[in-house]
C-alpha cells in the first residue's frame, strides 16, 4: 500500500512575457489502487501538474511538497522519481531516433529494477504485453516512437506502464487522438496494470469518454491552477451536462468559455 501526497504545490513556467505561475496551491492524496480523474478546461494547468510531478526542467516549483510514501519527489531528478515508482504517460511521447524500443525498454527495466531482467522471461513478457496491446512485433525493432502514429505512441506508453510496473501513473490525456478501438485497447492495458500491481492512477482528461472504460473512484475538477471540486463518478456526468464554465472566474476568456 503506497500513498502519493501533493501538498500545497505552486509551480511556474518561463514564458516570453516573463515567469507565469500555473499551479496555485494543489492538494491531493492518492492511494494504491485508486483511480482519480482530473478534469478541467484547457489551460487550467492539468498538463503542468503532470509534468511537474515527473520533474520536467521547464517547470519550476515555487513551494509545496510531493511525497511518495513520505519521500519528497521534488528533490529528485526525473529518473530518481521513476525509480521511486512514478510514471508519466505523456500526451505527446517523444521520438528518440536511433534507439530501438527493445534496447530502450530493457535499459529502463534494468534501471527501475536495479538489475537486468532475465533474458528469456523478459522477451516472453515483452512479446505477450505487445500482443495484448495489439502492437505489431516489428515495433520492438524500431526506434523509440519514431514514425509511430498517435495511437501507436499511446499504446507504446501503456506498454511501458505495464512492463515497468510503477506505483503511481499519471496519464496525461492518454485518450486524446484515439479512435474507439484504440481507446478500448489502451484502457484495457491500464486496467490490467491496476489489477496486477495495485497501481494508483491520476488520469488527466478533457472528456468523459475514457471514463467509460477506466472507471474512476474519484473525480476532480481542476481550474485556474488548483482543484476546485471533488466528487464521485457522478461528477463527471454533471460536467458533461454543464461544462466547466461554472468553475471559471467571472469574465475569464478561457478556450472552453469561448467555445
Amino acid at each position, binding site marked *: 500500500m503506497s500513498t502519493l501526497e501533493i501538498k500545497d504545490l505552486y509551480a511556474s513556467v518561463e514564458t516570453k512575457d516573463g515567469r507565469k505561475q500555473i499551479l496555485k496551491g494543489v492538494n491531493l492524496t492518492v492511494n494504491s489502487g485508486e483511480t482519480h480523474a482530473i478534469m478541467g478546461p484547457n489551460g487550467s494547468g492539468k498538463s503542468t501538474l503532470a509534468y511537474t510531478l*515527473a*520533474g*520536467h*526542467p521547464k517547470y519550476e516549483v515555487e513551494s509545496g511538497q510531493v511525497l511518495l510514501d513520505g519521500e519528497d519527489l521534488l528533490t529528485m*531528478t*526525473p*529518473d530518481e*522519481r*521513476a*525509480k521511486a515508482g512514478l*510514471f*508519466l504517460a*505523456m500526451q505527446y*511521447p*517523444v*521520438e*528518440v*531516433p*536511433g*534507439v*530501438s524500443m527493445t*534496447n*530502450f525498454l*530493457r*535499459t*529502463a527495466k*534494468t*534501471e*527501475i529494477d*536495479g*538489475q*537486468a531482467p532475465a*533474458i528469456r522471461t523478459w522477451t516472453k513478457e515483452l512479446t505477450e504485453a505487445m500482443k495484448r496491446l495489439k502492437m505489431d512485433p516489428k515495433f520492438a525493432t524500431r*526506434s*523509440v516512437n519514431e514514425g509511430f502514429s498517435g495511437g501507436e505512441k499511446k499504446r507504446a506508453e501503456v506498454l*511501458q506502464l505495464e512492463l*515497468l510496473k510503477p506505483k503511481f501513473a499519471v496519464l496525461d490525456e492518454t485518450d486524446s487522438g484515439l479512435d474507439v478501438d484504440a481507446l478500448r485497447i489502451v484502457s484495457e492495458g491500464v486496467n490490467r496494470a491496476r489489477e496486477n500491481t495495485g497501481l494508483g492512477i491520476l488520469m488527466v482528461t478533457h472528456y468523459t469518454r475514457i471514463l467509460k472504460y477506466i472507471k474512476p473512484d474519484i473525480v476532480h475538477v481542476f481550474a485556474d491552477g488548483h482543484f476546485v471540486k471533488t466528487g464521485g463518478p457522478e461528477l463527471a456526468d454533471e460536467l458533461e451536462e454543464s461544462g466547466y464554465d461554472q468553475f471559471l472566474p467571472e469574465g475569464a476568456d478561457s478556450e472552453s468559455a469561448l467555445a
Partner: protein
Amino acid sequence: MAENTEITIPVADPNDPYAVPAAMPSSADRAPRSFDLDAFAMPTSRQEEWRYTPLDRVAEFLDVFEPSGLTTVEVTGIDGSPLDPAQVGVEVVDRTVAPSGTVSKPSDRISAVEWNVVKTATVVTLHGDVAQPVRITVTGGGDAPDALHLVIAADAGTHADVVVEHHGMARLAEGVEIVTGRDSNLSTTFIQEWEKGSKHVGGHRIHVGENASLRHSMVTLGGDVVRIRMDQDFGGPQGDLNMLGIYFADPGEHIEHRTMVVHNHPDCKSRVVYKGALDGQGAHSTWVGNALIQPTAPGTDSYELNRNLVLTPGAIADSEPNLEIENGNIIGAGHASSVGRFDDEELFYLQSRGIPETEARKLVVRGFFGELVEEIGIPQIGDHLMSIIDRRLARGESEAMTTVWEEK
C-alpha cells in the same frame, strides 16, 4: 545587346580561395601528388586543405624528423591465433620495395614527410579465401614522434577481412596503402583507440581493382589530435567502394577525417557514410568528403553522408561535402550532411523512464553508431566493433548496464 560578350569565370586565388564566391575551389583537387617533400608548401590555416586543423598541435609532423622506431606491429588472427602463411603473408621490407610505394603518391605534406622519414614498410599480402579475419595490432611507442608505413595488398579473387587496431600512447605519422586485385572482396577496419594525449596523422592511399569491392571503415574513439586523409581511385569498371566512419570526440580533442573518392572508370559505385558524436567543451570534429566524377566514368553511382550528434554544448562539428561531376551520364551523385543536438525533450523522456542522464546519452550514442555497425554485415567484425564502442562508452559504467549490452 552585348551578344558576343564572352563570360569570364574568375579564378580563385589559392591563398584566399573563398574570396570570389563564383569560383569555389575545385574538389577535383589539382594539388600535387609527389614523394618529394619540396612539392608541398608548409601548411597554413589559410589553405583550404588545412583550415580546420590545429596546425600547432601537429607541428612535429610537418617537417622531417627522426622517427623513434618504438611503434610495434603484430599480425595475428582476430582471436590472436597464428595465420596460415599460404593465405596471409607478413613482411617488413625496405619502403621502396613493391607493392610499397606503388599506390598513388602522397597527397599532402604530412604524408610526404612520413614517406621521407620512414625506412621500412610492413606489408601484409592476402591470397584466396581467408576465413578468419586478420588483426594487425599497432601499439604506440610513447611521446617521441614515430612513423609507420603499412601496406595491405589483396591478390585477384581474394576474400578477406582485416582489422587494424591502434592502442597505447602515440605520436604517429602513419601511411597506409591498400591495393585490391581484380574480382577481390576485401574489408579493412581501422580502429583508433589511442590513450589520452596521443597524436595520429597520416593518409590512406587506396586502389580498388576492377570488379572488386572494398569496405573501408574508420573507427576513431580516442586521441588528442587525429587527422587522417583517404585518397582512392578505381583500377577498372564495376569497382565498389564502401567507406564507413565512426568517431567520438571528447573535450579538447580534434578528430579529422577527409575522404577523397575518385571515379575514374565506368560503372563504379561508392558510398561514404561517416557518423560522429561529440561531447563537451572544445571537442572538435571535421569531416571533409570529396567526390570527383571524371569524364572517363560514365555510369557512376556515388553518395556521401555525414551525421554529427552533439551531446553537450561547447563542441564543434565541421562537415563539408564537396562534389565535382565532370560527366553527365551517371546513375547518381548525392550528398547529405547534418549536425544535430541531443535534445532536452529526448533526455527528459528517457529520464522519466528511470534512465539517468549519463546512461541516456550512452543509449543514444550506441543507437546512433549501432545502425552503421550493423551495415558492416560481418558478424565477427560488427560484434568486435560494438564491444569497442561499448568499452568507449562504458567508462565508469554500472555493472547492471554492462550486462544488458552484452546480452544483446
